[in-house]
């Protein structure tokens, strides 16, 4: 899902992968959701995120491992069902195996579902002789009483077959051993080769010599010829990029291709891909039946039973809402105490920090902005953000690992279909609850560019962790009285979130009817079997991969923001601070939409990180020079009410928290993901406009009541 430092940061290799080192290069290929990333992690120790739902790795991670005094470079290719390149991921995987010539390609396959996996295995074996089959999830296969004859399979395929249970590190030593052998050997391997019908073979032989003249590799020539028969246009482009072969320019190749096509037409074959795929599928079926015995035909019943319940008409949706509400409840209740503890600790350190700096005779023009600007803002952000994230992300990762998320997409797809977008958007929205920037990156799982763009633009409509504290504080203060009952407050919060979801659907629909016209693309979603998540690993991984990652980024934007806010509050023009000037500048417009100048300015200054919106509001009302921490919501409510907050103000603030421009990090991410300035601007303007409009309507309605 590319949610992590390794997925989004310097470790990821987007689209094109170039290898410069002298290590043996090993490619890791396989269907989605077969534990490929687990194999990768176990081998390299590099923490790349894995999840129990298809299509996780969309950019490629690279890592190294050593075995027998030798270093190997491992490239984790995107999970794909085939190499026929109907999506970017398939193109990346295909181009790497075809043109970058890895020394060995490890094909990771699901031992519980070998038949479907064989499809890709046979396709990869058409491309390279240096392949190894890694049959992963062997422990699960054993539990399901699936008996695989390794010797027969290895013999049928003509490559090494290694059984692994990567989660418990079983079989990986043998995998590394075999990888070493295959990547070193000069021996000619002769793996099984799919033969096609006579007509297709004849047509192939018309093109193949021409390609062989150009690349001198019989195996690849055969494969490229096959793709040319299939009029694979994306391959033509890759040929041009990687081998400088322009099919349209090379006359004899062009003629040969045209003749082969004419021959096929004469023989009555129009859809070549059907013949190719059918042949491969039939071969897969044959090999599978030869090598696999299932002793327990009803092994899938458990998952089916659970799914019947989870997707049922009456329980499906309420169950999901309950679960979502439950997660929020746990997050809210669970983070109260650690938040207070953290803030006591961090603000408790502050006097010592001041003493320490004074001891160095630090001049006050450095000390003040540093401590009261930068440090206090950081302390606030950390104590408000860290506990909820440390609870939310592990919970979310548990859902992800258990395989529950694809069921959410399954249950919700109909609504998204109505809005002419993709069911997987519900998953990127779920991710947005954690962090919108993460959600935007996650949109890569959606194949169609049109639907991906819609998902990116609307991701900000679900509130992220940074906005939850503000939402919760306002809800607790103004909507449920002071004897706060976490159950009621999470109910209201769930309602607010539903508003965000409804708005997402409406906006998606409007976008796809106007600027992003088009039909919904096909929705094919694999529902993997449920897997017991490894709770320990989930906690460690989600804390390190997501929590620390997001927190680090938030701190990076909060520190300069803290400095800026301090300066605005402390630099005076006339008798008023810059902050006060700005506030009175925004005030007329803000009041027009039911807010006030302070609130609006807080949102603008909160652009780097939404967490600091509430502290800025408090700071401005108190006219203090620094961010202030309030330990009691009672006192806070009194302060807000004394500055004219009514139920309408709080409602408008609630709505504006939900609908306004995305934070700085998210904007940067949108720019990076869409590569377009225009769509970034639209992603900023659209939610802001909706927020202003809704607030204005609330204000209007309230004046008439």
């Amino acid at each position, binding site marked *: 899902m590319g949610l992590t430092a390794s997925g989004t940061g310097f470790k990821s290799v987007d689209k094109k992968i170039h290898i410069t080192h002298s290590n043996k290069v090993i490619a890791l290929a396989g269907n989605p959701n077969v534990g490929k990333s687990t194999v990768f992690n176990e081998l390299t120790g590099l923490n790349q995120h894995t999840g129990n739902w298809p299509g996780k790795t969309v950019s490629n991670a690279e890592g190294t491992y050593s075995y027998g005094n030798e270093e190997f470079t491992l490239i984790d290719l995107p999970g794909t*069902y*085939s190499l*026929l390149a*109907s999506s970017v991921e398939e193109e990346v995987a295909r181009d790497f195996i075809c043109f970058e010539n890895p020394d060995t390609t490890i094909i990771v396959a699901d031992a*519980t*579902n*070998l*038949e*479907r996996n064989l*499809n890709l295995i046979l396709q990869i074996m058409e491309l390279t002789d240096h392949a190894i089959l890694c049959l992963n999830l062997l422990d699960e296969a054993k539990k399901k009483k699936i008996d695989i004859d390794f010797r027969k399979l290895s013999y049928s395929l003509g490559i090494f077959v290694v059984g692994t249970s990567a989660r418990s590190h079983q079989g990986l030593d043998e995998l590394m051993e075999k990888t070493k052998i295959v990547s070193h050997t000069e021996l000619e391997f002769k793996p099984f080769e799919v033969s096609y019908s006579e007509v297709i073979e004849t047509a192939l032989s018309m093109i193949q010599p021409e390609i062989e003249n150009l690349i001198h590799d019989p195996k690849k020539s055969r494969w490229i010829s096959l793709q040319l028969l299939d009029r694979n246009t994306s391959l033509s482009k890759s040929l041009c990029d990687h081998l400088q072969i322009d099919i349209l320019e090379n006359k004899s190749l062009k003629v040969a291709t045209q003749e082969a096509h004419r021959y096929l037409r004469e023989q009555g074959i129009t*859809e070549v*891909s*059907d013949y190719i*795929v*059918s042949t491969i*599928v*039939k071969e*897969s079926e044959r090999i599978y039946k030869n090598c696999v015995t299932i002793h327990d*035909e009803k092994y*899938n019943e458990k*998952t*089916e039973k659970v*799914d*019947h319940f989870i*997707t*049922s*008409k*009456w329980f*499906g*949706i309420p169950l999901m809402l309950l679960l979502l509400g439950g997660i929020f409840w746990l997050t809210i209740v669970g983070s109260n105490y650690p938040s207070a503890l953290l803030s006591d600790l961090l603000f408790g350190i502050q006097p010592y920090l001041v003493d320490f700096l004074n001891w160095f005779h630090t001049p006050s023009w450095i000390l003040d902005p540093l401590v009261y600007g930068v440090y206090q803002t950081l302390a606030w952000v950390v104590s408000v953000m860290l506990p909820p994230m440390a609870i939310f992300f592990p919970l979310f990762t548990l859902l992800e690992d258990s395989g529950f998320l*694809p069921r959410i997409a*399954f*249950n*919700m*797809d*109909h*609504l998204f*279909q109505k809005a002419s977008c993709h*069911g997987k958007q519900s998953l990127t929205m779920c991710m947005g609850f954690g962090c919108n920037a993460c959600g935007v990156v996650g949109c890569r799982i959606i194949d169609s560019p049109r639907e991906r763009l819609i998902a990116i633009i609307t991701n900000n409509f679900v509130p992220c962790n940074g906005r939850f504290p503000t939402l919760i504080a306002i809800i607790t203060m103004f909507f449920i009285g002071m004897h706060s009952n976490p159950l009621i407050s999470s109910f209201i919060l769930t309602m607010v979130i539903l508003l965000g979801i409804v708005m997402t659907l409406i906006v998606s629909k409007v976008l796809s009817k106007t600027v992003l016209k088009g039909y*919904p*693309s*096909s*929705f*094919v*979603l*694999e*529902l*993997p*079997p449920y897997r017991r998540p490894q709770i320990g690993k989930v906690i460690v991984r989600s804390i390190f991969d997501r929590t620390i990652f997001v927190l680090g980024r938030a701190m990076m934007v909060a520190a300069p923001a803290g400095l800026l806010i301090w300066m605005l509050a402390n630099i005076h023009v006339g008798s008023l601070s810059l902050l006060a000037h700005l506030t009175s500048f925004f005030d007329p417009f803000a009041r027009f939409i039911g807010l006030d100048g302070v609130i609006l300015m807080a949102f603008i200054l909160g652009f780097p990180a939404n967490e600091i919106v509430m502290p800025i509001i408090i700071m401005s009302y108190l006219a203090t020079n620094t961010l202030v921490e309030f330990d009691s919501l009672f006192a806070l409510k009194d302060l807000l009410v004394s500055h004219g907050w009514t139920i309408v103000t709080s409602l408008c603030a609630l709505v504006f928290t939900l609908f306004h421009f995305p934070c700085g990090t998210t904007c940067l991410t949108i720019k990076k993901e869409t590569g377009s300035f225009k769509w970034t601007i639209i992603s900023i303007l659209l939610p802001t406009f909706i927020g202003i409009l809704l607030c204005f309507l609330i204000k209007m309605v309230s004046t008439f009541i």
Partner: protein
Amino acid sequence: MSLNELQLGEYGVVKAIHATDKVRRRFLDLGIVPNTKVKCLYRSPFKDPTAYFIRGTTIALRNEDASLIEITRMEESSWA
């Protein structure tokens, strides 16, 4: 009949695929070719999409897409 007409718990065999371009490719990738056996497992709460058991995997398809797959009904006894 087409795949979306299959009732819950019923079995079928693929006869032909009437989809084109990318959708057709996707089907082929999943091993949905003539003579492939399918079982209709369950529908989403909104009745669309529907989950099918195809070649050892549970795959969800929108009814609109499933209508492009022509099948004939099959007895449970011919499943294995």
